Protein backbone atom coordinates (compact mmCIF):
# COMPACT_ATOMS: atom_id res chain seq x y z
CA UNK A 1 0.00 0.00 0.00
CA UNK A 2 2.68 2.56 0.83
CA UNK A 3 4.23 1.86 -2.60
CA UNK A 4 0.90 2.43 -4.39
CA UNK A 5 0.39 5.58 -2.37
CA UNK A 6 3.83 6.82 -3.35
CA UNK A 7 3.16 6.14 -7.05
CA UNK A 8 -0.20 7.91 -6.85
CA UNK A 9 1.43 10.83 -5.07
CA UNK A 10 4.17 11.01 -7.71
CA UNK A 11 1.60 10.99 -10.53
CA UNK A 12 -0.47 13.62 -8.75
CA UNK A 13 2.57 15.80 -8.12
CA UNK A 14 3.62 15.35 -11.74
CA UNK A 15 0.26 16.63 -12.95
CA UNK A 16 0.40 19.41 -10.42
CA UNK A 17 3.87 20.52 -11.45
CA UNK A 18 3.04 20.28 -15.15
CA UNK A 19 0.07 22.54 -14.52
CA UNK A 20 2.31 24.94 -12.64
CA UNK A 21 4.91 24.97 -15.39
CA UNK A 22 2.23 25.96 -17.87
CA UNK A 23 1.13 28.91 -15.75
CA UNK A 24 4.22 31.05 -16.26
CA UNK A 25 3.82 31.89 -19.99
CA UNK A 26 0.36 33.24 -19.23
CA UNK A 27 1.85 35.35 -16.46
CA UNK A 28 4.50 36.64 -18.86
CA UNK A 29 1.81 37.77 -21.29
CA UNK A 30 -0.10 39.33 -18.37
CA UNK A 31 2.94 41.36 -17.29
CA UNK A 32 3.69 42.50 -20.84
CA UNK A 33 0.10 43.68 -21.37
CA UNK A 34 -0.38 45.29 -17.99
CA UNK A 35 3.00 47.04 -17.98
CA UNK A 36 2.26 48.54 -21.39
CA UNK A 37 -1.15 49.59 -20.11
CA UNK A 38 0.50 51.36 -17.15
CA UNK A 39 3.05 53.13 -19.33
CA UNK A 40 0.28 54.23 -21.71
CA UNK A 41 -1.69 55.81 -18.86
CA UNK A 42 1.40 57.62 -17.59
CA UNK A 43 2.30 58.85 -21.08
CA UNK A 44 -1.24 60.01 -21.90
CA UNK A 45 -0.84 63.76 -22.41
CA UNK A 46 -4.56 64.30 -22.82
CA UNK A 47 -5.01 63.73 -19.07
CA UNK A 48 -4.23 66.41 -16.50
CA UNK A 49 -2.39 65.40 -13.30
CA UNK A 50 -5.54 64.75 -11.24
CA UNK A 51 -7.18 62.71 -14.00
CA UNK A 52 -3.99 60.72 -14.54
CA UNK A 53 -3.68 59.94 -10.82
CA UNK A 54 -7.32 58.85 -10.66
CA UNK A 55 -6.96 56.64 -13.74
CA UNK A 56 -3.74 55.13 -12.44
CA UNK A 57 -5.33 54.40 -9.05
CA UNK A 58 -8.12 52.58 -10.88
CA UNK A 59 -5.54 50.64 -12.85
CA UNK A 60 -3.57 49.67 -9.70
CA UNK A 61 -6.79 48.47 -8.11
CA UNK A 62 -7.52 46.26 -11.10
CA UNK A 63 -4.07 44.63 -11.35
CA UNK A 64 -3.18 44.36 -7.66
CA UNK A 65 -4.79 42.43 -4.84
CA UNK A 66 -4.69 45.48 -2.56
CA UNK A 67 -6.35 43.93 0.52
CA UNK A 68 -3.90 41.02 0.41
CA UNK A 69 -0.87 43.26 -0.04
CA UNK A 70 -2.16 45.52 2.76
CA UNK A 71 -2.32 42.53 5.11
CA UNK A 72 1.15 41.48 3.98
CA UNK A 73 2.69 44.87 4.75
CA UNK A 74 1.12 44.82 8.22
CA UNK A 75 3.01 41.58 8.88
CA UNK A 76 2.26 40.02 12.24
CA UNK A 77 0.06 43.00 13.18
CA UNK A 78 -2.53 41.91 10.58
CA UNK A 79 -3.41 38.79 12.54
CA UNK A 80 -6.33 39.51 14.83
CA UNK A 81 -6.37 43.22 13.93
CA UNK A 82 -9.48 45.30 14.63
CA UNK A 83 -11.56 44.91 11.39
CA UNK A 84 -12.42 48.61 11.29
CA UNK A 85 -8.78 49.68 11.58
CA UNK A 86 -7.79 47.06 9.04
CA UNK A 87 -10.37 48.40 6.58
CA UNK A 88 -9.15 51.98 7.13
CA UNK A 89 -5.54 50.90 6.71
CA UNK A 90 -6.38 49.06 3.47
CA UNK A 91 -8.13 52.13 2.10
CA UNK A 92 -5.24 54.47 2.99
CA UNK A 93 -2.63 51.97 1.82
CA UNK A 94 -4.42 51.68 -1.55
CA UNK A 95 -3.99 55.41 -2.12
CA UNK A 96 -0.40 55.42 -0.89
CA UNK A 97 0.65 52.38 -2.97
CA UNK A 98 -0.92 53.87 -6.07
CA UNK A 99 1.07 57.08 -5.49
CA UNK A 100 4.32 55.14 -5.04
CA UNK A 101 3.84 53.05 -8.18
CA UNK A 102 2.80 56.11 -10.20
CA UNK A 103 5.86 57.96 -8.96
CA UNK A 104 8.23 55.05 -9.69
CA UNK A 105 6.85 54.21 -13.13
CA UNK A 106 6.28 57.88 -13.96
CA UNK A 107 10.03 58.27 -14.35
CA UNK A 108 9.88 56.20 -17.52
CA UNK A 109 8.94 57.99 -20.72
CA UNK A 110 9.98 56.57 -24.07
CA UNK A 111 11.26 53.31 -22.62
CA UNK A 112 9.84 49.90 -23.41
CA UNK A 113 9.38 46.86 -21.22
CA UNK A 114 10.44 43.45 -22.48
CA UNK A 115 9.58 40.22 -20.69
CA UNK A 116 12.58 37.89 -20.44
CA UNK A 117 11.13 34.79 -18.77
CA UNK A 118 9.58 33.49 -15.59
CA UNK A 119 9.88 31.05 -12.71
CA UNK A 120 7.08 29.24 -10.93
CA UNK A 121 7.42 29.44 -7.16
CA UNK A 122 4.44 27.21 -6.56
CA UNK A 123 1.13 26.74 -8.35
CA UNK A 124 -0.47 30.15 -8.80
CA UNK A 125 2.64 31.99 -7.62
CA UNK A 126 5.30 33.01 -10.13
CA UNK A 127 7.99 35.61 -10.73
CA UNK A 128 8.20 37.20 -14.18
CA UNK A 129 11.50 38.81 -15.17
CA UNK A 130 11.58 41.84 -17.45
CA UNK A 131 13.80 44.75 -18.43
CA UNK A 132 13.00 48.34 -19.16
CA UNK A 133 15.25 49.75 -21.85
CA UNK A 134 15.55 52.43 -24.48
CA UNK A 135 14.46 56.04 -24.05
CA UNK A 136 16.70 58.04 -21.78
CA UNK A 137 18.15 55.22 -19.68
CA UNK A 138 21.75 54.14 -20.36
CA UNK A 139 21.61 50.63 -18.89
CA UNK A 140 18.55 48.35 -19.06
CA UNK A 141 16.79 48.18 -15.68
CA UNK A 142 15.71 44.78 -14.39
CA UNK A 143 12.14 44.63 -13.11
CA UNK A 144 10.67 41.46 -11.59
CA UNK A 145 6.98 40.90 -10.99
CA UNK A 146 5.46 38.57 -8.39
CA UNK A 147 2.21 37.25 -9.87
CA UNK A 148 -0.50 35.38 -8.02
CA UNK A 149 -3.27 33.53 -9.83
CA UNK A 150 -6.49 32.57 -8.05
CA UNK A 151 -9.62 31.33 -9.80
CA UNK A 152 -8.08 32.15 -13.16
CA UNK A 153 -7.46 35.79 -12.22
CA UNK A 154 -3.89 37.08 -12.24
CA UNK A 155 -2.82 39.87 -9.92
CA UNK A 156 0.45 41.60 -9.08
CA UNK A 157 1.58 41.10 -5.49
CA UNK A 158 4.95 42.83 -5.61
CA UNK A 159 7.39 44.50 -8.00
CA UNK A 160 11.18 44.39 -7.68
CA UNK A 161 13.06 47.33 -9.17
CA UNK A 162 16.73 48.23 -8.65
CA UNK A 163 16.96 45.01 -6.57
CA UNK A 164 14.29 46.07 -4.08
CA UNK A 165 10.87 44.44 -3.67
CA UNK A 166 8.56 47.37 -3.02
CA UNK A 167 5.90 45.62 -0.88
CA UNK A 168 8.60 43.93 1.19
CA UNK A 169 10.23 47.32 1.67
CA UNK A 170 6.89 48.81 2.71
CA UNK A 171 6.30 45.94 5.15
CA UNK A 172 9.64 46.52 6.87
CA UNK A 173 8.91 50.23 7.22
CA UNK A 174 5.26 49.96 8.26
CA UNK A 175 5.88 47.26 10.86
CA UNK A 176 8.71 49.42 12.25
CA UNK A 177 6.32 52.38 12.65
CA UNK A 178 3.76 50.14 14.36
CA UNK A 179 6.43 48.62 16.64
CA UNK A 180 7.55 52.13 17.62
CA UNK A 181 3.96 52.88 18.71
CA UNK A 182 3.32 49.86 20.85
CA UNK A 183 1.68 47.78 18.11
CA UNK A 184 -0.89 50.42 17.13
CA UNK A 185 -1.92 50.15 13.44
CA UNK A 186 -3.38 53.66 13.79
CA UNK A 187 0.18 55.06 13.83
CA UNK A 188 0.85 53.59 10.37
CA UNK A 189 -2.47 54.99 9.12
CA UNK A 190 -1.47 58.47 10.34
CA UNK A 191 1.97 58.31 8.71
CA UNK A 192 0.53 57.16 5.37
CA UNK A 193 -2.12 59.89 5.47
CA UNK A 194 0.63 62.43 6.03
CA UNK A 195 2.63 61.10 3.05
CA UNK A 196 -0.49 61.22 0.85
CA UNK A 197 -1.32 64.77 1.97
CA UNK A 198 2.20 65.91 1.06
CA UNK A 199 2.27 63.87 -2.16
CA UNK A 200 5.58 62.54 -0.89
CA UNK A 201 6.10 59.36 -2.87
CA UNK A 202 9.77 59.55 -3.82
CA UNK A 203 11.76 59.42 -6.98
CA UNK A 204 9.91 61.70 -9.36
CA UNK A 205 9.71 64.61 -6.92
CA UNK A 206 13.25 64.02 -5.71
CA UNK A 207 14.62 64.12 -9.24
CA UNK A 208 12.73 67.29 -9.93
CA UNK A 209 14.26 68.77 -6.78
CA UNK A 210 17.75 67.85 -7.89
CA UNK A 211 17.50 69.29 -11.38
Amino acid sequence: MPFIKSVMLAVFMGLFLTGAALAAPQDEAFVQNKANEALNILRDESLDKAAKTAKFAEYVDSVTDVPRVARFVLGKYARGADPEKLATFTQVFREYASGVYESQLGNFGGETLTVLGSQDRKPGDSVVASVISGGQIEEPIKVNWRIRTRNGKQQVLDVQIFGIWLALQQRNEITSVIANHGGDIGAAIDVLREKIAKGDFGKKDAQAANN
Partner: protein
Amino acid sequence: MRMTFRTFTLISAAVAASACGTTSSARQDDPLYVWNKGVFAFNKTADKVVVEPVARTYHNVVPKPGRDGVRNALGNLRSPVIFGNDLLQGKFGRAGKTLARFGINSTLGIGGLFDVAKRAGIKGHTEDMGQTLAVWGISSGPYVMLPILGPSNFRDTTGFILDIGMEPLTYMRFNGRHAILTGRFGANGVTVREANLDTVEALRHASIDEYASLKSAYEQLRVNAISDGQVNIDDLPDYDEYEDEE
Protein backbone atom coordinates in the same frame (compact mmCIF):
# COMPACT_ATOMS: atom_id res chain seq x y z
CA MET B 1 45.51 51.18 6.88
CA ARG B 2 46.58 50.49 10.44
CA MET B 3 44.32 53.41 11.44
CA THR B 4 41.38 51.85 9.65
CA PHE B 5 41.89 48.55 11.41
CA ARG B 6 42.23 50.29 14.76
CA THR B 7 39.01 52.20 14.07
CA PHE B 8 37.28 48.93 13.38
CA THR B 9 38.55 47.39 16.57
CA LEU B 10 37.10 50.34 18.46
CA ILE B 11 33.83 50.04 16.59
CA SER B 12 33.61 46.32 17.32
CA ALA B 13 34.23 46.95 21.01
CA ALA B 14 31.63 49.70 21.07
CA VAL B 15 29.13 47.49 19.25
CA ALA B 16 29.76 44.65 21.67
CA ALA B 17 29.32 47.00 24.63
CA SER B 18 26.16 48.35 23.06
CA ALA B 19 24.83 44.85 22.51
CA CYS B 20 25.27 44.12 26.20
CA GLY B 21 23.37 47.22 27.20
CA THR B 22 20.44 47.09 24.80
CA THR B 23 18.89 43.71 25.26
CA SER B 24 15.83 45.12 27.00
CA SER B 25 15.04 47.41 24.06
CA ALA B 26 16.23 45.02 21.38
CA ARG B 27 14.01 43.96 18.50
CA GLN B 28 13.92 40.43 17.23
CA ASP B 29 15.31 41.32 13.81
CA ASP B 30 17.55 44.13 15.07
CA PRO B 31 19.24 43.22 18.37
CA LEU B 32 21.52 46.29 18.20
CA TYR B 33 18.58 48.63 17.61
CA VAL B 34 19.52 51.25 20.22
CA TRP B 35 23.16 51.46 19.07
CA ASN B 36 22.09 51.43 15.43
CA LYS B 37 19.55 54.23 15.88
CA GLY B 38 22.17 56.35 17.63
CA VAL B 39 24.78 55.84 14.92
CA PHE B 40 22.12 56.39 12.25
CA ALA B 41 21.34 59.81 13.75
CA PHE B 42 25.07 60.61 13.90
CA ASN B 43 25.62 59.52 10.29
CA LYS B 44 22.63 61.53 9.13
CA THR B 45 24.04 64.67 10.72
CA ALA B 46 27.53 63.97 9.34
CA ASP B 47 26.00 63.47 5.90
CA LYS B 48 24.00 66.68 6.09
CA VAL B 49 26.88 68.80 7.40
CA VAL B 50 29.86 67.34 5.53
CA VAL B 51 29.40 64.44 3.10
CA GLU B 52 26.42 65.61 1.06
CA PRO B 53 27.66 69.23 0.63
CA VAL B 54 31.06 67.91 -0.51
CA ALA B 55 29.42 65.43 -2.91
CA ARG B 56 27.07 68.11 -4.26
CA THR B 57 29.94 70.57 -4.76
CA TYR B 58 31.93 67.85 -6.53
CA HIS B 59 28.87 67.18 -8.73
CA ASN B 60 28.48 70.87 -9.58
CA VAL B 61 32.15 71.67 -10.14
CA VAL B 62 33.50 68.62 -11.95
CA PRO B 63 31.88 67.84 -15.34
CA LYS B 64 30.38 64.37 -15.88
CA PRO B 65 33.27 62.98 -18.00
CA GLY B 66 35.67 63.91 -15.19
CA ARG B 67 33.50 62.27 -12.54
CA ASP B 68 33.13 59.18 -14.71
CA GLY B 69 36.91 59.01 -15.06
CA VAL B 70 37.47 59.20 -11.30
CA ARG B 71 34.80 56.55 -10.67
CA ASN B 72 36.33 54.29 -13.34
CA ALA B 73 39.83 54.68 -11.89
CA LEU B 74 38.70 53.94 -8.33
CA GLY B 75 36.72 50.95 -9.59
CA ASN B 76 39.76 49.70 -11.48
CA LEU B 77 41.88 49.90 -8.32
CA ARG B 78 39.37 47.59 -6.66
CA SER B 79 39.83 44.90 -9.34
CA PRO B 80 42.29 42.73 -7.34
CA VAL B 81 39.76 42.41 -4.50
CA ILE B 82 36.95 41.61 -6.93
CA PHE B 83 39.16 39.10 -8.73
CA GLY B 84 40.11 37.38 -5.46
CA ASN B 85 36.50 37.12 -4.39
CA ASP B 86 35.41 35.86 -7.82
CA LEU B 87 37.93 33.03 -7.38
CA LEU B 88 36.97 32.32 -3.78
CA GLN B 89 33.36 31.95 -4.90
CA GLY B 90 34.36 29.59 -7.69
CA LYS B 91 33.13 31.99 -10.36
CA PHE B 92 36.01 31.50 -12.73
CA GLY B 93 34.29 33.01 -15.78
CA ARG B 94 33.64 36.20 -13.85
CA ALA B 95 37.22 36.13 -12.51
CA GLY B 96 38.46 35.99 -16.11
CA LYS B 97 36.34 39.01 -16.99
CA THR B 98 37.64 40.96 -13.99
CA LEU B 99 41.22 40.14 -14.95
CA ALA B 100 40.62 41.09 -18.59
CA ARG B 101 38.95 44.35 -17.56
CA PHE B 102 41.85 45.20 -15.25
CA GLY B 103 44.40 44.54 -17.98
CA ILE B 104 42.52 46.45 -20.69
CA ASN B 105 41.47 49.42 -18.56
CA SER B 106 44.86 49.81 -16.85
CA THR B 107 46.60 50.04 -20.25
CA LEU B 108 44.26 51.16 -23.03
CA GLY B 109 42.06 52.90 -20.49
CA ILE B 110 45.01 54.95 -19.17
CA GLY B 111 45.21 53.70 -15.62
CA GLY B 112 41.52 52.92 -15.49
CA LEU B 113 40.28 56.43 -16.31
CA PHE B 114 38.33 55.08 -19.29
CA ASP B 115 36.21 51.93 -19.22
CA VAL B 116 37.43 50.61 -22.57
CA ALA B 117 36.59 47.04 -21.58
CA LYS B 118 32.90 47.89 -21.21
CA ARG B 119 32.86 49.33 -24.72
CA ALA B 120 34.41 46.05 -25.87
CA GLY B 121 31.48 44.19 -24.28
CA ILE B 122 33.18 43.13 -21.02
CA LYS B 123 30.94 44.62 -18.37
CA GLY B 124 32.13 45.11 -14.83
CA HIS B 125 30.65 43.65 -11.66
CA THR B 126 31.42 43.89 -7.97
CA GLU B 127 32.22 41.23 -5.41
CA ASP B 128 33.46 41.51 -1.86
CA MET B 129 34.36 39.23 0.99
CA GLY B 130 30.96 39.76 2.64
CA GLN B 131 29.39 38.21 -0.46
CA THR B 132 31.99 35.44 -0.50
CA LEU B 133 31.24 34.55 3.13
CA ALA B 134 27.53 34.46 2.25
CA VAL B 135 28.21 32.14 -0.70
CA TRP B 136 30.15 29.92 1.72
CA GLY B 137 26.99 29.61 3.81
CA ILE B 138 27.83 32.02 6.64
CA SER B 139 24.75 33.86 7.87
CA SER B 140 24.65 37.65 8.01
CA GLY B 141 24.52 38.02 11.78
CA PRO B 142 22.93 41.10 13.33
CA TYR B 143 22.44 44.27 11.34
CA VAL B 144 24.86 46.97 12.46
CA MET B 145 25.13 50.65 11.59
CA LEU B 146 28.77 51.70 11.42
CA PRO B 147 29.88 55.29 12.00
CA ILE B 148 30.51 57.05 8.66
CA LEU B 149 30.62 53.73 6.77
CA GLY B 150 26.86 53.22 7.12
CA PRO B 151 24.70 50.08 7.12
CA SER B 152 26.34 46.67 7.48
CA ASN B 153 26.03 43.42 9.37
CA PHE B 154 28.55 41.26 11.24
CA ARG B 155 29.35 39.20 8.13
CA ASP B 156 29.83 42.23 5.87
CA THR B 157 31.91 44.06 8.49
CA THR B 158 34.16 41.01 8.79
CA GLY B 159 34.30 40.85 5.00
CA PHE B 160 35.25 44.53 4.82
CA ILE B 161 38.23 43.92 7.11
CA LEU B 162 39.27 40.79 5.19
CA ASP B 163 39.05 42.72 1.90
CA ILE B 164 41.67 45.13 3.25
CA GLY B 165 43.93 42.11 3.56
CA MET B 166 43.30 41.29 -0.08
CA GLU B 167 44.33 44.77 -1.26
CA PRO B 168 47.82 44.87 -2.82
CA LEU B 169 48.21 48.46 -1.55
CA THR B 170 48.02 47.15 2.02
CA TYR B 171 51.40 45.45 1.55
CA MET B 172 53.19 48.16 -0.43
CA ARG B 173 55.65 50.41 1.34
CA PHE B 174 56.38 53.87 -0.05
CA ASN B 175 56.46 57.48 1.06
CA GLY B 176 53.05 59.11 1.29
CA ARG B 177 51.31 55.75 1.43
CA HIS B 178 49.00 56.79 4.27
CA ALA B 179 48.00 59.98 2.48
CA ILE B 180 47.19 58.01 -0.66
CA LEU B 181 45.17 55.41 1.21
CA THR B 182 43.26 58.07 3.14
CA GLY B 183 42.69 60.08 -0.03
CA ARG B 184 41.42 57.01 -1.81
CA PHE B 185 39.05 56.19 1.06
CA GLY B 186 37.69 59.75 1.00
CA ALA B 187 37.43 59.84 -2.79
CA ASN B 188 35.54 56.55 -2.78
CA GLY B 189 33.09 57.93 -0.23
CA VAL B 190 32.49 61.17 -2.13
CA THR B 191 32.17 59.34 -5.47
CA VAL B 192 29.62 56.86 -4.11
CA ARG B 193 27.65 59.64 -2.39
CA GLU B 194 27.72 61.78 -5.55
CA ALA B 195 26.46 58.90 -7.67
CA ASN B 196 23.60 58.38 -5.21
CA LEU B 197 22.50 61.98 -4.63
CA ASP B 198 19.13 61.33 -6.28
CA THR B 199 18.70 57.86 -4.80
CA VAL B 200 19.27 59.00 -1.22
CA GLU B 201 16.95 61.95 -1.75
CA ALA B 202 14.34 59.58 -3.18
CA LEU B 203 14.73 57.18 -0.28
CA ARG B 204 14.22 60.03 2.17
CA HIS B 205 11.12 61.25 0.37
CA ALA B 206 9.57 57.85 -0.22
CA SER B 207 10.30 56.34 3.15
CA ILE B 208 7.69 55.91 5.82
CA ASP B 209 10.36 55.25 8.45
CA GLU B 210 13.81 56.37 7.30
CA TYR B 211 15.81 54.08 9.60
CA ALA B 212 13.76 50.99 8.69
CA SER B 213 13.84 51.99 5.04
CA LEU B 214 17.65 52.10 4.93
CA LYS B 215 17.94 48.82 6.84
CA SER B 216 15.47 47.07 4.54
CA ALA B 217 17.04 48.49 1.37
CA TYR B 218 20.52 47.48 2.52
CA GLU B 219 19.43 43.94 3.36
CA GLN B 220 17.54 43.51 0.09
CA LEU B 221 20.39 44.93 -2.00
CA ARG B 222 22.90 42.61 -0.32
CA VAL B 223 20.70 39.58 -1.04
CA ASN B 224 20.48 40.78 -4.64
CA ALA B 225 24.27 41.26 -4.87
CA ILE B 226 25.01 37.85 -3.34
CA SER B 227 22.81 36.14 -5.93
CA ASP B 228 24.34 38.29 -8.72
CA GLY B 229 20.93 39.82 -9.38
CA GLN B 230 19.12 36.51 -9.78
CA VAL B 231 15.85 36.06 -7.88
CA ASN B 232 15.89 33.05 -5.60
CA ILE B 233 12.19 32.21 -5.49
CA ASP B 234 12.56 30.07 -2.37
CA ASP B 235 13.69 33.14 -0.39
CA LEU B 236 10.55 35.13 -1.19
CA PRO B 237 7.99 35.54 1.59
CA ASP B 238 4.61 33.84 1.55
CA TYR B 239 1.69 36.19 1.22
CA ASP B 240 -0.62 33.94 3.23
CA GLU B 241 1.66 34.00 6.26
CA TYR B 242 -0.36 36.55 8.23
CA GLU B 243 -3.83 35.64 7.06
CA ASP B 244 -6.36 34.98 9.84
CA GLU B 245 -7.11 31.32 10.13
CA GLU B 246 -10.50 30.47 8.67
